[in-house]
Protein backbone atom coordinates (compact mmCIF):
# COMPACT_ATOMS: atom_id res chain seq x y z
CA UNK A 1 0.00 0.00 0.00
CA UNK A 2 1.25 3.44 -0.83
CA UNK A 3 2.04 5.62 2.17
CA UNK A 4 0.21 8.85 1.41
CA UNK A 5 2.17 10.90 3.92
CA UNK A 6 5.38 10.53 1.93
CA UNK A 7 3.90 11.74 -1.35
CA UNK A 8 4.50 15.39 -1.84
CA UNK A 9 1.50 17.06 -3.45
CA UNK A 10 2.23 19.13 -6.55
CA UNK A 11 2.09 22.76 -5.37
CA UNK A 12 -0.18 25.20 -7.12
CA UNK A 13 1.65 27.64 -9.37
CA UNK A 14 1.96 30.94 -7.55
CA UNK A 15 -0.29 33.66 -8.92
CA UNK A 16 0.84 37.11 -7.80
CA UNK A 17 -2.30 38.62 -9.31
CA UNK A 18 -4.48 36.79 -6.80
CA UNK A 19 -3.38 37.84 -3.33
CA UNK A 20 -4.86 36.53 -0.09
CA UNK A 21 -2.83 39.01 1.92
CA UNK A 22 -1.64 42.26 0.32
CA UNK A 23 1.16 42.59 2.92
CA UNK A 24 2.93 39.79 1.03
CA UNK A 25 3.22 41.92 -2.11
CA UNK A 26 4.02 45.08 -0.12
CA UNK A 27 6.94 43.33 1.60
CA UNK A 28 8.08 41.51 -1.56
CA UNK A 29 8.31 44.89 -3.32
CA UNK A 30 10.10 46.48 -0.41
CA UNK A 31 12.67 43.71 -0.13
CA UNK A 32 13.39 43.47 -3.83
CA UNK A 33 13.80 47.25 -4.20
CA UNK A 34 16.11 47.24 -1.18
CA UNK A 35 18.31 44.45 -2.60
CA UNK A 36 22.03 45.16 -2.30
CA UNK A 37 25.43 43.43 -2.33
CA UNK A 38 28.53 44.23 -0.25
CA UNK A 39 30.53 44.98 -3.43
CA UNK A 40 28.50 48.22 -3.71
CA UNK A 41 30.08 49.61 -0.54
CA UNK A 42 33.65 51.02 -0.84
CA UNK A 43 34.95 49.18 2.21
CA UNK A 44 38.59 49.71 1.27
CA UNK A 45 38.21 53.40 2.16
CA UNK A 46 38.15 52.21 5.78
CA UNK A 47 41.70 50.82 5.68
CA UNK A 48 43.35 54.00 7.08
CA UNK A 49 40.68 54.25 9.78
CA UNK A 50 41.07 50.57 10.73
CA UNK A 51 44.79 51.07 11.33
CA UNK A 52 43.98 53.83 13.83
CA UNK A 53 42.10 51.42 16.10
CA UNK A 54 44.06 49.83 18.94
CA UNK A 55 44.78 46.13 18.79
CA UNK A 56 42.08 45.53 21.45
CA UNK A 57 39.53 47.55 19.49
CA UNK A 58 40.35 45.66 16.31
CA UNK A 59 40.02 42.28 18.04
CA UNK A 60 36.70 43.30 19.58
CA UNK A 61 35.40 44.44 16.18
CA UNK A 62 36.35 41.19 14.45
CA UNK A 63 34.79 39.12 17.25
CA UNK A 64 31.57 41.12 17.19
CA UNK A 65 31.35 40.57 13.44
CA UNK A 66 31.92 36.81 13.71
CA UNK A 67 29.09 36.74 16.29
CA UNK A 68 26.83 38.54 13.83
CA UNK A 69 27.94 36.19 11.04
CA UNK A 70 26.81 33.23 13.14
CA UNK A 71 23.33 34.71 13.69
CA UNK A 72 22.95 35.50 9.99
CA UNK A 73 24.09 31.98 9.12
CA UNK A 74 21.46 30.50 11.42
CA UNK A 75 18.78 32.73 9.96
CA UNK A 76 19.84 31.90 6.39
CA UNK A 77 20.12 28.13 6.71
CA UNK A 78 17.67 27.28 9.51
CA UNK A 79 15.46 30.19 10.61
CA UNK A 80 13.84 31.45 7.42
CA UNK A 81 13.55 27.93 5.89
CA UNK A 82 11.94 26.67 9.15
CA UNK A 83 9.17 29.26 8.74
CA UNK A 84 8.30 28.15 5.21
CA UNK A 85 6.18 25.07 6.05
CA UNK A 86 4.00 27.32 8.27
CA UNK A 87 3.35 29.88 5.53
CA UNK A 88 -0.35 30.59 5.12
CA UNK A 89 -0.09 31.88 1.56
CA UNK A 90 2.20 30.85 -1.34
CA UNK A 91 3.35 34.48 -1.52
CA UNK A 92 4.51 34.30 2.09
CA UNK A 93 6.73 31.37 1.13
CA UNK A 94 8.20 33.39 -1.71
CA UNK A 95 8.91 36.32 0.63
CA UNK A 96 10.65 33.93 3.05
CA UNK A 97 12.97 32.73 0.27
CA UNK A 98 13.98 36.35 -0.25
CA UNK A 99 14.57 36.78 3.48
CA UNK A 100 16.67 33.59 3.56
CA UNK A 101 18.81 34.77 0.66
CA UNK A 102 19.38 38.24 2.10
CA UNK A 103 20.56 36.63 5.34
CA UNK A 104 23.17 34.82 3.23
CA UNK A 105 24.17 38.20 1.75
CA UNK A 106 24.52 39.63 5.26
CA UNK A 107 26.65 36.71 6.43
CA UNK A 108 28.77 37.04 3.30
CA UNK A 109 29.23 40.80 3.90
CA UNK A 110 31.16 40.32 7.13
CA UNK A 111 33.69 38.24 5.22
CA UNK A 112 34.02 41.12 2.73
CA UNK A 113 34.83 43.42 5.65
CA UNK A 114 37.36 40.88 6.97
CA UNK A 115 39.11 40.35 3.65
CA UNK A 116 39.39 44.13 3.20
CA UNK A 117 40.61 45.08 6.67
CA UNK A 118 42.07 42.10 8.53
CA UNK A 119 44.71 39.39 8.33
CA UNK A 120 43.67 35.77 7.78
CA UNK A 121 45.16 34.75 11.13
CA UNK A 122 43.14 37.37 13.03
CA UNK A 123 39.95 36.28 11.32
CA UNK A 124 40.59 32.58 11.91
CA UNK A 125 41.19 33.34 15.59
CA UNK A 126 37.87 35.19 15.81
CA UNK A 127 35.90 32.39 14.14
CA UNK A 128 37.45 29.96 16.66
CA UNK A 129 36.46 32.37 19.43
CA UNK A 130 32.84 32.42 18.20
CA UNK A 131 32.72 28.63 18.17
CA UNK A 132 33.91 28.48 21.76
CA UNK A 133 32.13 31.49 23.23
CA UNK A 134 29.58 30.09 25.71
CA UNK A 135 27.16 33.03 25.52
CA UNK A 136 27.07 33.08 21.74
CA UNK A 137 26.60 29.33 21.62
CA UNK A 138 23.91 29.44 24.32
CA UNK A 139 21.75 32.06 22.63
CA UNK A 140 22.10 30.25 19.29
CA UNK A 141 21.04 27.02 21.02
CA UNK A 142 17.91 28.62 22.51
CA UNK A 143 16.79 29.94 19.13
CA UNK A 144 17.65 26.72 17.27
CA UNK A 145 15.67 24.68 19.79
CA UNK A 146 12.56 26.67 18.91
CA UNK A 147 13.18 26.34 15.18
CA UNK A 148 13.63 22.57 15.51
CA UNK A 149 11.08 21.61 18.15
CA UNK A 150 8.08 22.61 16.02
CA UNK A 151 6.07 22.66 19.26
CA UNK A 152 4.04 25.54 17.86
CA UNK A 153 4.50 27.32 14.51
CA UNK A 154 4.07 30.70 16.21
CA UNK A 155 6.90 30.00 18.66
CA UNK A 156 9.26 29.78 15.68
CA UNK A 157 8.08 33.23 14.62
CA UNK A 158 8.71 34.60 18.13
CA UNK A 159 12.25 33.16 18.05
CA UNK A 160 12.83 34.63 14.59
CA UNK A 161 11.62 38.11 15.58
CA UNK A 162 13.85 38.06 18.68
CA UNK A 163 16.90 36.94 16.70
CA UNK A 164 16.42 39.65 14.06
CA UNK A 165 15.06 42.36 16.33
CA UNK A 166 17.05 41.84 19.51
CA UNK A 167 20.05 39.49 19.38
CA UNK A 168 21.81 41.36 16.57
CA UNK A 169 21.96 44.63 18.46
CA UNK A 170 24.76 43.90 20.92
CA UNK A 171 26.81 43.57 17.72
CA UNK A 172 25.29 46.40 15.67
CA UNK A 173 26.14 48.77 18.49
CA UNK A 174 29.88 48.69 17.76
CA UNK A 175 29.95 49.87 14.11
CA UNK A 176 27.44 52.61 15.09
CA UNK A 177 29.80 53.59 17.91
CA UNK A 178 32.79 53.74 15.55
CA UNK A 179 30.75 55.66 12.97
CA UNK A 180 29.76 58.26 15.58
CA UNK A 181 33.50 58.85 16.03
CA UNK A 182 34.11 59.05 12.28
CA UNK A 183 35.76 55.59 12.28
CA UNK A 184 34.97 52.78 9.81
CA UNK A 185 32.24 54.89 8.23
CA UNK A 186 31.94 52.74 5.09
CA UNK A 187 31.63 49.60 7.18
CA UNK A 188 28.88 51.41 9.10
CA UNK A 189 27.10 52.19 5.81
CA UNK A 190 27.07 48.47 5.03
CA UNK A 191 25.82 47.59 8.53
CA UNK A 192 23.03 50.16 8.12
CA UNK A 193 21.83 48.23 5.06
CA UNK A 194 21.70 45.09 7.19
CA UNK A 195 19.88 46.97 9.98
CA UNK A 196 17.32 48.21 7.45
CA UNK A 197 16.71 44.67 6.13
CA UNK A 198 16.34 43.24 9.63
CA UNK A 199 13.66 45.84 10.38
CA UNK A 200 11.60 44.70 7.39
CA UNK A 201 12.08 41.03 8.32
CA UNK A 202 11.02 41.61 11.95
CA UNK A 203 8.06 43.72 10.87
CA UNK A 204 6.82 41.08 8.40
CA UNK A 205 7.32 38.00 10.57
CA UNK A 206 5.83 39.89 13.55
CA UNK A 207 2.85 40.74 11.38
CA UNK A 208 2.40 37.08 10.33
CA UNK A 209 2.62 36.16 14.00
CA UNK A 210 -0.23 38.54 14.83
CA UNK A 211 -2.29 37.10 11.98
CA UNK A 212 -1.66 33.62 13.39
CA UNK A 213 -2.87 34.74 16.84
CA UNK A 214 -6.19 35.94 15.41
CA UNK A 215 -7.48 32.39 14.92
CA UNK A 216 -6.43 31.10 18.37
CA UNK A 217 -8.38 30.94 21.62
CA UNK A 218 -7.73 33.40 24.42
CA UNK A 219 -5.97 30.68 26.44
CA UNK A 220 -3.64 29.83 23.54
CA UNK A 221 -2.87 33.49 22.98
CA UNK A 222 -2.02 33.95 26.65
CA UNK A 223 0.26 30.92 26.60
CA UNK A 224 2.18 32.29 23.60
CA UNK A 225 2.49 35.71 25.21
CA UNK A 226 3.92 34.14 28.37
CA UNK A 227 6.29 32.13 26.23
CA UNK A 228 7.45 35.25 24.34
CA UNK A 229 8.17 37.21 27.53
CA UNK A 230 9.98 34.33 29.20
CA UNK A 231 12.11 33.76 26.07
CA UNK A 232 13.09 37.44 25.87
CA UNK A 233 14.02 37.35 29.58
CA UNK A 234 16.19 34.30 29.02
CA UNK A 235 17.85 35.82 25.96
CA UNK A 236 18.34 39.13 27.75
CA UNK A 237 20.14 37.36 30.55
CA UNK A 238 22.60 35.82 28.09
CA UNK A 239 22.93 39.07 26.14
CA UNK A 240 23.79 40.91 29.34
CA UNK A 241 26.70 38.56 30.01
CA UNK A 242 27.81 38.55 26.37
CA UNK A 243 27.77 42.38 26.40
CA UNK A 244 29.82 42.58 29.60
CA UNK A 245 32.39 40.16 28.23
CA UNK A 246 32.77 42.13 25.01
CA UNK A 247 32.42 45.73 26.12
CA UNK A 248 33.66 45.98 29.73
CA UNK A 249 37.18 46.57 28.44
CA UNK A 250 36.10 49.71 26.57
CA UNK A 251 33.76 50.85 29.37
CA UNK A 252 30.76 50.74 27.03
CA UNK A 253 28.64 48.02 28.69
CA UNK A 254 25.97 50.30 30.19
CA UNK A 255 25.63 52.20 26.94
CA UNK A 256 25.17 48.93 25.01
CA UNK A 257 22.58 47.71 27.52
CA UNK A 258 20.39 50.78 27.00
CA UNK A 259 20.51 49.95 23.28
CA UNK A 260 19.52 46.33 24.05
CA UNK A 261 16.52 47.45 26.14
CA UNK A 262 15.39 49.81 23.41
CA UNK A 263 15.60 47.10 20.75
CA UNK A 264 13.95 44.42 22.93
CA UNK A 265 10.96 46.75 23.25
CA UNK A 266 10.83 47.24 19.49
CA UNK A 267 10.98 43.48 18.87
CA UNK A 268 8.05 43.01 21.28
CA UNK A 269 6.12 45.76 19.50
CA UNK A 270 6.59 43.92 16.20
CA UNK A 271 4.84 40.96 17.83
CA UNK A 272 2.04 43.32 18.91
CA UNK A 273 3.07 43.39 22.58
CA UNK A 274 3.73 46.17 25.03
CA UNK A 275 7.24 47.19 26.05
CA UNK A 276 9.17 45.25 28.67
CA UNK A 277 11.74 47.87 29.69
CA UNK A 278 10.60 51.28 31.02
CA UNK A 279 11.61 54.35 29.00
CA UNK A 280 14.25 55.43 31.53
CA UNK A 281 16.23 52.23 30.81
CA UNK A 282 16.04 52.84 27.06
CA UNK A 283 17.86 56.17 26.91
CA UNK A 284 20.23 55.30 24.10
CA UNK A 285 23.26 57.52 23.69
CA UNK A 286 22.17 60.24 21.21
CA UNK A 287 25.37 59.71 19.23
CA UNK A 288 24.31 56.10 18.58
CA UNK A 289 20.80 57.18 17.58
CA UNK A 290 22.28 59.76 15.21
CA UNK A 291 24.58 57.11 13.72
CA UNK A 292 21.57 54.83 13.25
CA UNK A 293 19.44 57.41 11.46
CA UNK A 294 21.60 60.27 10.21
CA UNK A 295 19.64 63.46 9.42
CA UNK A 296 16.44 61.99 10.87
CA UNK A 297 16.40 64.59 13.61
CA UNK A 298 17.71 67.45 11.53
CA UNK A 299 14.22 68.82 11.00
CA UNK A 300 13.05 69.38 14.52
CA UNK A 301 9.46 68.48 15.06
CA UNK A 302 6.97 70.94 16.46
CA UNK A 303 6.21 69.28 19.79
CA UNK A 304 9.84 68.66 20.76
CA UNK A 305 10.19 72.42 20.36
CA UNK A 306 13.14 74.13 18.80
CA UNK A 307 11.34 77.47 18.61
CA UNK A 308 8.13 78.76 17.13
CA UNK A 309 9.00 78.13 13.48
CA UNK A 310 9.26 74.87 11.67
CA UNK A 311 11.23 73.56 8.75
CA UNK A 312 9.32 71.93 5.95
CA UNK A 313 10.74 68.55 5.05
CA UNK A 314 13.23 67.86 2.31
CA UNK A 315 11.77 66.62 -0.99
CA UNK A 316 11.24 62.87 -1.22
CA UNK A 317 10.19 61.23 -4.47
CA UNK A 318 6.73 59.70 -4.24
CA UNK A 319 5.99 58.61 -7.82
CA UNK A 320 2.37 57.93 -7.07
CA UNK A 321 0.23 59.05 -9.99
CA UNK A 322 -2.72 59.91 -7.82
CA UNK A 323 -0.61 62.06 -5.48
CA UNK A 324 -1.45 65.08 -7.58
CA UNK A 325 -3.02 67.70 -5.39
Amino acid at each position, binding site marked *: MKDLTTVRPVPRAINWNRLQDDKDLEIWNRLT*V*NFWLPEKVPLSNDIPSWSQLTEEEQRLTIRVFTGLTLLDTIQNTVGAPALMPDAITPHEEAVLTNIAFMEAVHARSYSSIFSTLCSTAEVDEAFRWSEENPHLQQKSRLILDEYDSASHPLKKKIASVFLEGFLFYSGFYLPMHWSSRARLTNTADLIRLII*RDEAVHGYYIGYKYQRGLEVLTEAERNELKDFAFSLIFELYDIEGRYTEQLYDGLGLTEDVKAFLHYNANKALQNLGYESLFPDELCKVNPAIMAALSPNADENHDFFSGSGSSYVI*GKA*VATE*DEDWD*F
Partner: protein
Amino acid sequence: MGGLVYYSSRTGNTRRFVERLGLAASRIPMEPDAPLPAPRAPFVLITPTYADGQGRGAVHKQVIRFLNDPDTRCHLRGVIASGNRNFGRLFASAGDVVARKCAVPVLYRFELAGTETDLARVREGLDRFWTTQCSTAT
Protein backbone atom coordinates in the same frame (compact mmCIF):
# COMPACT_ATOMS: atom_id res chain seq x y z
CA MET B 1 -9.44 70.68 20.66
CA GLY B 2 -9.34 69.73 16.99
CA GLY B 3 -9.82 66.33 15.45
CA LEU B 4 -7.51 63.40 14.93
CA VAL B 5 -7.45 61.07 11.92
CA TYR B 6 -5.09 58.11 11.55
CA TYR B 7 -4.14 55.28 9.25
CA SER B 8 -3.01 51.91 10.56
CA SER B 9 -2.40 48.74 8.57
CA ARG B 10 -3.09 45.27 9.93
CA THR B 11 0.14 45.28 11.97
CA GLY B 12 -1.85 47.61 14.24
CA ASN B 13 1.12 49.66 15.48
CA THR B 14 -0.53 53.04 14.87
CA ARG B 15 -3.90 51.75 16.07
CA ARG B 16 -2.34 50.70 19.38
CA PHE B 17 -0.66 54.09 19.69
CA VAL B 18 -3.94 55.95 19.11
CA GLU B 19 -5.87 53.69 21.49
CA ARG B 20 -3.35 54.35 24.27
CA LEU B 21 -3.44 58.06 23.48
CA GLY B 22 -7.05 57.99 24.64
CA LEU B 23 -8.27 60.76 22.34
CA ALA B 24 -11.21 60.51 19.94
CA ALA B 25 -9.92 59.65 16.47
CA SER B 26 -11.26 58.47 13.10
CA ARG B 27 -9.50 55.70 11.24
CA ILE B 28 -8.84 55.78 7.50
CA PRO B 29 -10.03 52.33 6.34
CA MET B 30 -7.63 49.79 4.82
CA GLU B 31 -10.05 48.72 2.08
CA PRO B 32 -9.66 50.85 -1.06
CA ASP B 33 -13.42 50.85 -1.72
CA ALA B 34 -14.54 51.72 1.84
CA PRO B 35 -15.89 55.24 2.54
CA LEU B 36 -13.23 57.64 3.85
CA PRO B 37 -13.59 59.98 6.80
CA ALA B 38 -14.32 63.52 5.60
CA PRO B 39 -13.46 65.93 8.42
CA ARG B 40 -14.90 69.41 7.97
CA ALA B 41 -13.10 70.97 10.93
CA PRO B 42 -9.38 71.36 11.78
CA PHE B 43 -7.61 68.05 12.40
CA VAL B 44 -4.20 66.42 12.80
CA LEU B 45 -3.19 63.34 10.79
CA ILE B 46 -1.21 60.42 12.26
CA THR B 47 0.39 58.30 9.55
CA PRO B 48 2.92 55.46 9.37
CA THR B 49 5.71 55.43 6.76
CA TYR B 50 6.02 52.82 4.00
CA ALA B 51 9.06 54.14 2.10
CA ASP B 52 11.35 51.81 0.20
CA GLY B 53 15.14 52.28 0.24
CA GLN B 54 14.81 55.19 -2.20
CA GLY B 55 12.07 56.90 -0.24
CA ARG B 56 9.32 56.01 -2.72
CA GLY B 57 5.82 55.17 -1.56
CA ALA B 58 6.34 56.72 1.89
CA VAL B 59 2.69 57.72 2.22
CA HIS B 60 0.13 54.90 2.03
CA LYS B 61 -2.29 55.01 -0.93
CA GLN B 62 -5.26 55.19 1.41
CA VAL B 63 -3.80 58.28 3.11
CA ILE B 64 -3.24 59.81 -0.32
CA ARG B 65 -6.85 59.07 -1.28
CA PHE B 66 -8.00 60.68 1.95
CA LEU B 67 -5.91 63.81 1.37
CA ASN B 68 -6.86 64.05 -2.29
CA ASP B 69 -10.21 65.55 -1.23
CA PRO B 70 -9.59 69.34 -1.20
CA ASP B 71 -12.40 69.88 1.32
CA THR B 72 -10.65 67.51 3.73
CA ARG B 73 -7.13 68.72 2.99
CA CYS B 74 -7.91 72.38 3.75
CA HIS B 75 -8.65 71.38 7.36
CA LEU B 76 -5.33 69.56 7.91
CA ARG B 77 -3.27 71.48 10.46
CA GLY B 78 -0.36 69.18 11.17
CA VAL B 79 1.02 65.67 10.78
CA ILE B 80 2.42 63.15 13.25
CA ALA B 81 4.47 60.44 11.54
CA SER B 82 5.64 57.04 12.69
CA GLY B 83 8.32 54.72 11.37
CA ASN B 84 11.45 52.88 12.44
CA ARG B 85 14.86 54.44 12.96
CA ASN B 86 16.34 51.35 11.30
CA PHE B 87 15.36 53.03 8.04
CA GLY B 88 17.97 55.70 8.69
CA ARG B 89 17.41 59.07 7.06
CA LEU B 90 13.99 57.93 5.81
CA PHE B 91 12.70 57.41 9.37
CA ALA B 92 9.07 58.65 9.49
CA SER B 93 9.54 60.31 6.08
CA ALA B 94 5.78 60.13 5.38
CA GLY B 95 5.51 63.13 7.74
CA ASP B 96 7.95 65.15 5.63
CA VAL B 97 6.11 64.29 2.40
CA VAL B 98 2.70 65.30 3.79
CA ALA B 99 4.18 68.44 5.39
CA ARG B 100 5.71 69.54 2.10
CA LYS B 101 2.64 68.72 0.00
CA CYS B 102 0.15 70.31 2.36
CA ALA B 103 2.31 73.07 3.88
CA VAL B 104 1.66 71.96 7.46
CA PRO B 105 4.19 71.27 10.23
CA VAL B 106 5.51 67.84 11.23
CA LEU B 107 4.35 67.86 14.84
CA TYR B 108 6.06 64.73 16.07
CA ARG B 109 7.79 61.48 15.04
CA PHE B 110 7.68 58.17 16.86
CA GLU B 111 8.69 54.55 16.28
CA LEU B 112 6.31 51.59 15.74
CA ALA B 113 3.60 51.68 18.43
CA GLY B 114 5.34 54.45 20.43
CA THR B 115 6.56 54.63 24.02
CA GLU B 116 5.03 56.14 27.16
CA THR B 117 7.24 59.19 26.61
CA ASP B 118 5.87 59.55 23.07
CA LEU B 119 2.29 59.33 24.32
CA ALA B 120 2.86 62.00 26.99
CA ARG B 121 4.56 64.32 24.48
CA VAL B 122 1.81 63.94 21.91
CA ARG B 123 -1.00 64.49 24.44
CA GLU B 124 0.69 67.57 25.81
CA GLY B 125 1.81 68.78 22.39
CA LEU B 126 -1.66 68.48 20.84
CA ASP B 127 -3.18 70.28 23.77
CA ARG B 128 -0.75 73.18 23.38
CA PHE B 129 -1.04 73.13 19.59
CA TRP B 130 -4.83 73.43 19.53
CA THR B 131 -4.80 76.18 22.14
CA THR B 132 -2.38 78.17 19.99
CA GLN B 133 -4.41 77.41 16.83
CA CYS B 134 -7.62 78.67 18.45
CA SER B 135 -6.09 81.85 19.79
CA THR B 136 -4.51 82.71 16.42
CA ALA B 137 -7.72 81.89 14.54
CA THR B 138 -9.80 84.48 16.38
